């Protein structure tokens, strides 16, 4: 126990020292490299059975090394129907040297009692971890021994092994394919090389004529046997490119080496895999090896957009290809503005890894160009004319993570800008936000709508050519593609609209909403009165970008449906528009006369009207709303000659556009009042027009 405490103290000191060293070499701090794996041995069956798991036979990466920590946990099940079994588990440096047998669970003297047909969990050591000594194999677990007594029907058990390296140590890969990339020169690595044990692999990318050079100090802690160190260079196919002379490290002694070199004479860039290895019985602990290179790719100043606050330093990616202004990156749903974003500048190596800024570079300067300044924040919201993206700072210093970051606010759902970052000599390529490689003013990522995703490829921003529903002869809905993308506030929420369906905007000021208009087979949005232009009911009144209009803009209006209550002509509704064509933009008013409807509907129609609520009032108001909206989009009456409408009407006449149909009556069983049409006919859907 005393020895373990002393060793822990030594390791802790080493860790602190190491952290400082790692930071100096700008190698990411390694917070304890952890390996976890499971073992499923065969059951123990018999009166007194023992089974060893020899870890030295496992892959190199699953073995414990000096100064690693080790623990194992698992569960054991006694299959016997009536009798208990006894289970023990202990850890050994080799078959005879016990390290730990303390075990959790229902145990006495480190043995678990497993009741019949029961499962118990366990852990060794019972608390904490085994800390491997740096001295040879003392306290380094090599064997896990399981024993069972009275296991007549068998004790089955599973093990989960957890090994954690010293922070920063043994980071080299255990195979060529797992080689640790080295992108900073010089870099110093640390670790252990047991006798004929785990090799350590590193990888550098060399430009033509580039050279990698290793030097280091090796300590052999074996008291009686030398170690033999060598550096071997391979290509990615595992073919040897070169090797250094081997180096003997005396027992209980040290040796240094330098100029273990390889030069890339291939004439092209080359990934070189470096194997550092001990091929004798000594025990190198620790090794301290410095890897220097020339001909590493030139660091490239790179700009990233982070739209979801999860920029990954180890795998840096820009969000701008998938970014849509004011939209949540994950699903495109609109978020509040201003939308906080971040521009991130970093130097990267040829592998795209972030590396420290070159010597002398401490800060960079961000800038925005060609930034839009649309009026408002969406087609029908707000009125500000400020630019649609704003940087929170321009000159930014690199932080400890080797990035320079600046806040970027998005202030418009259709805004765009071009961002760059520059150091004293170079400027990054312009980043168009959102990405628009095909220059159609629409995000290459498309946009999300309640009806699904819109793909922007090949779209013209000024097009307005929806053809729905099938057979309709008046394409377009009065909104160009860019306006549908920029979107609208509808019911207090921001939505973008799709291009597969015409969009009609209605502000119903009746409790019945839009009634049966839902059968028009287009997208009908029932919006709030404050979402239309207060003076002229335009839905896309924010169409200016500075001094320029949105290309192809057309003043489209919403319909406002109001209750006008009573008229002396007995009309249920009235719609007015500026000739010659009834469309939302030419519409002047849509009035519903609800008191007339209530007067006509059975069974109360006294004069003067009592305004009693009758059973058909709601259905008739629903039909009248759809009827008048129909007029506002160019639909005529279905007027049957001589007012000779059979009841119920045949399917050819079953339309909300039917007129002179519902009589003034007190007859609650009147056929017309019991059969109020609630749809438009196909022929009418062909004729309606929105522009």
């Amino acid at each position, binding site marked *: 126990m005393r020895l373990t405490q002393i060793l822990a103290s030594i390791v802790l000191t080493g860790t602190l020292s190491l952290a400082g060293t790692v930071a100096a070499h700008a190698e990411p701090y390694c917070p304890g490299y952890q390996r976890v794996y499971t073992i499923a041995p065969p059951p123990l069956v018999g009166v007194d059975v023992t089974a060893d798991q020899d870890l030295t036979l496992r892959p190199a990466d699953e073995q414990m090394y000096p100064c690693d920590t080790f623990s194992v946990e698992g569960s054991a099940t006694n299959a016997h129907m009536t009798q208990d079994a006894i289970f023990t588990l202990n850890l050994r440096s080799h078959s005879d040297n016990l390290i730990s047998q303390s075990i959790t669970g229902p145990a006495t003297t480190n043995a678990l009692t497993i009741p019949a047909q029961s499962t118990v969990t366990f852990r060794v050591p019972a608390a904490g971890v085994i800390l491997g000594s740096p001295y040879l194999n003392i306290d380094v677990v090599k064997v896990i021994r399981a024993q069972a007594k009275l296991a007549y029907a068998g004790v089955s058990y599973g093990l989960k092994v957890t090994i954690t390296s010293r922070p920063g140590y043994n980071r080299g890969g255990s195979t060529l394919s797992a080689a640790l990339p080295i992108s900073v020169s010089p870099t110093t690595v640390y670790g252990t090389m047991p006798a004929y044990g785990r090799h350590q692999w590193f990888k550098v990318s060399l430009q033509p004529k580039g050279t990698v050079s290793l030097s280091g100090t090796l300590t052999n802690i074996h008291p009686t046997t030398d170690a033999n160190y060598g550096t071997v260079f391979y290509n990615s196919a595992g073919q040897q490119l070169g090797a250094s002379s081997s180096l003997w490290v005396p027992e209980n002694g040290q040796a240094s080496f330098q100029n273990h070199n390889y030069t890339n004479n291939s004439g092209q860039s080359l990934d070189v895999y470096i194997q550092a290895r001990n091929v004798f019985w000594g025990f190198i602990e620790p090794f301290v090896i410095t890897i220097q290179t020339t001909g590493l790719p030139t660091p490239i100043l790179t700009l990233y957009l982070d739209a979801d606050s999860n920029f990954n330093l180890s795998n840096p990616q820009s969000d701008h290809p998938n970014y849509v202004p004011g939209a949540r990156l994950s699903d495109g749903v*609109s978020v*509040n503005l201003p939308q906080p974003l971040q521009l991130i500048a970093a130097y990267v190596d040829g592998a795209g890894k972030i590396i420290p800024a070159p010597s002398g570079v401490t800060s960079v300067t961000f800038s925005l160009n060609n930034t839009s300044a649309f009026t408002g924040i969406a087609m029908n919201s707000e009125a500000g004319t400020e630019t649609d993206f704003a940087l929170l700072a321009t000159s930014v210093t690199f932080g400890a993570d080797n990035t320079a970051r600046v806040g970027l606010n998005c202030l418009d759902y259709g805004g765009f800008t071009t961002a760059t970052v520059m150091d004293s000599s170079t400027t990054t390529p312009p980043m168009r936000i959102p990405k628009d490689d095909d220059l159609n003013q629409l995000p290459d990522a498309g946009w999300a709508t*309640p009806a699904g995703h819109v793909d922007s490829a090949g779209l013209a921003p000024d097009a307005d050519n929806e053809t729905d529903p099938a057979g309709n002869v008046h394409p377009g809905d009065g909104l160009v593609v860019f306006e549908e993308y920029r979107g609208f*506030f*509808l*019911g*207090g*929420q921001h939505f973008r609209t799709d291009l597969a*369906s015409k969009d009609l905007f209605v*502000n*119903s*000021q*009746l*409790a019945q*909403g*839009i009634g049966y*208009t*839902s*059968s*028009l*087979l*287009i*997208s*009908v949005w*029932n919006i*709030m*009165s*404050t979402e239309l*232009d*207060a*003076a002229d009911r335009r839905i896309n009144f924010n169409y200016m970008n500075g001094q320029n209009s949105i290309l192809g803009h057309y003043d489209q209006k919403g319909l*406002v449906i109001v*209750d*006008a*209550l*009573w*008229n*002396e*002509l*007995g*009309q249920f509704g*009235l719609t*007015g*528009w500026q*000739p010659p064509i*009834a469309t939302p933009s030419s519409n*002047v*008013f849509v009035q519903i*006369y609800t008191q007339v409807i209530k007067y006509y509907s059975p069974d109360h129609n006294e*004069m*003067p*009207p009592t305004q009693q*609520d009758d059973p058909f009032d*709601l259905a008739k108001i629903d039909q009248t709303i759809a009827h008048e909206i129909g*007029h506002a989009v160019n639909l005529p009456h279905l*007027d049957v000659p001589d007012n000779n409408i059979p009841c119920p009407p045949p399917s050819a006449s079953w339309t909300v556009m039917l*007129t*002179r149909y519902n*009589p*003034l009556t007190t007859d609650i069983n009147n056929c017309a009042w019991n059969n109020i049409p609630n749809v438009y006919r196909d022929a009418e859907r062909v004729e309606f027009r929105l522009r």
Partner: protein
Amino acid sequence: MRTTGWIVLTITALLGTLLSALDYSPLVLIVSPAEYFGDMYTAPPQGGATHVFFPGESVKLRIAISNWSSSPQTLLTTPGGPPDNLGFRVSRDGNAVNLGLAVDNMVRQTGPSGNFDVQWDRRMDLGPRDTLTVRADVLDKISTPGLYVIEVVHQMTDAEARLLRPQASRFQLEVRERSAETLCEIARRSALRAFLSGDYQEARNMTDQMLAANPQSFLAHVIRGDIAAAERSLLEADRSYELAIAMLEQGRDTLFLRSAGKFHLDDSLQALRSKRQRLSGR
């Protein structure tokens, strides 16, 4: 609310996944007139207003709270009755003005759950498409022309503490200056107001004023026909309707024709002929 084809997508159904600015309740607030007669003899309202009034004309409002979702909703009110829960902000041409409004304590529920008077409460349940209606009358006669906005202010929410959706919480009216052109419309409204209240003599007097202002007013004869029909003088009613139809067919009522497009004219003629047919069928 958005509808696509036969599928009704309510914005409220999408709210669970949205982060946008305002998360409104599916309970909507709508202010509309409690008394109105269309705009037969005058131009449609201007400047974004939805209704036209004339100086001195009474303005009576209905405040409706309607459940536009497909599930029951609960209205949470503040202590007191409707007058304590409903306030108003009034402006004329963009400037705040003082205007007294009296809110009725009586509350009416209509809709699929039935039509009945209800007691105002701190929690009020509304089924799908059910509506609560409260009356509020402007106490002062509005004398100054202009564009008025009467906005309802309140702190009512649904059970999830979401504000009522202000679907039409601002009643926008144009108070139009009296002129020779508007006299007939003003008299017409007075006639209809009297007729609907059962004061047929006053209504008849007002039709006289309509004809004094516009001798070719076919609507004056329509109203006279309605009065006669209400008084069971069917022959007189038929004569009045016949005369009105002839005046309309001959295009004599130029005041009406000025404000009515061709469709409006045809529609009116058709409506009037139907009205006469119904009378003869009685």
